[in-house]
């Protein structure tokens, strides 16, 4: 927490240091938003909006011992609600601004998962991104990577096993 306070103070003095706060919180904010809007493009727009807003208003942020992410989640919740109003969608206030303990735990678990993908061996990471982000078939991935379909399925299996081992189980 002390480390985070130092990062915030550094970024308040020198905005170019905001990148450190971004790296520490990107997956967290994206995870918070993606779970609530269920649309990749909207999630990206809102995530961008949150970080642009945070950068523009960082000077007004006052450290009171609460994690920086909570401030970002508040901005995100407002952005989600604003967007829902503009698109005339009903927004469940529990979904837009659900920062209770269980939600926090779930966000942290997915944040860890998303960050761990980058530490996978390159071939496993490539399969995860092509399969789950780009929604490509095993056949297409095999063709792109010059591997057999069996090899791609094996990489998928190993990647998920690796991630499960590192992130742990999910509370249901």
């Amino acid at each position: 927490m002390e480390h985070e306070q130092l990062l915030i103070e550094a970024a308040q003095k020198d905005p170019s240091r905001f990148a450190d706060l971004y790296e520490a919180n990107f997956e967290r904010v994206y995870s918070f938003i993606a779970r609530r809007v269920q649309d990749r493009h909207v999630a990206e727009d809102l995530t961008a909006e949150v970080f642009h807003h945070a950068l523009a208003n960082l000077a007004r942020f006052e450290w009171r011992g609460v994690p920086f992410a909570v401030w970002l989640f508040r901005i995100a919740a407002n952005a989600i609600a604003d967007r829902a109003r503009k698109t005339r969608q009903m927004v469940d206030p529990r979904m837009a601004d659900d920062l209770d303990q269980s939600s926090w735990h779930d966000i942290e678990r997915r944040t860890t998962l998303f960050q761990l993908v980058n530490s996978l061996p390159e071939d496993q990471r490539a399969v995860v991104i092509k399969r789950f982000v780009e929604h490509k078939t095993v056949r297409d991935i095999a063709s792109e990577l010059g591997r057999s379909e069996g090899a791609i399925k094996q990489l998928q299996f190993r990647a998920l096993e690796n991630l499960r081992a590192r992130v742990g189980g999910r509370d249901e």
Partner: protein
Amino acid sequence: MSKQPLIEQLDQAVVELLASGAMPASVDTSIVDLLRIAQDLRELPTPEFKARLRGELERKAQMSAKTVVFRPGFRTVTPYLLPPQPEFVDFLKGVFGAEETERTVTGPGRFHAELRIGDSMLMVGVGSGRTMPATLELYVSNVDEVYKRAVDAGCRQLEPVINAHWDAAFRFGIIEDRSGNHWVIATRLDGHYIPAGRNSLSASLVVTGAAAQVDFIRQAFDARELQRYEWPGGLYAALRIGDSVIGVNEASHEWMRPMPAMIYMYVPDCDALYERALRAGATSLAVPADHDYGDRSGGVTDAWGNQWYMATPL
């Protein structure tokens, strides 16, 4: 149990998961945890998005950290003309009293020139092989004298000098120069010859669908509408962008045909304005990049064919 059937089972379950978004109804308990990981991975952000957003934020942070020093004498908006002949520069000097402040040779028979006219700047690109005649509004201290000089220099008279019927203190005439540009030359008769809030030289877009063009400029460039006159089949609006004004006219008769213009804008963050213009519906002409002439700039074109270049001094 061999892993092979599990690998196949897992893939089949992933196919179902990706198709329906829901966990398959019955799967081997040994792969349930893996499927839950797979379910979460559907929300994995793309590395490209993360890198792109970081780049945007870094540029924004740099812009907020440094004070952008704009080029002396330049306003936010500078019209950019593409006359075919180099003599055009002499025409500007002789008729409008323009002062050439810079000339850069860009190739055989080609050059970029910058000229001061009154309190504004004009950019000129000669010899590119492209022409893009535009309409400009120019406030001068004596419209009758300048109009006569223009006609003597070979300009075609489009409207004689008159006092406007809608505003007797607004005296103006319109000419077409030999490069096809239209000049609305005007003098304000009460007070200063340049109306309050205006500058000597402004681009004036002539388009079909002026109301929509105004909406685009407001959205894309954060413009503020200063005035609007509407009449059956016609519209004129003046919009403020930064410290400059730009006119928008409905194309309404023979010589007032659509004339898309080229605009060069100096702004604190050209990347942000470029992105904003794209979000407002513009199409990219050039992604912002650093140039050896000292500006970082990019460009877009709008639905009416106007070309907007946004630049930030490096």
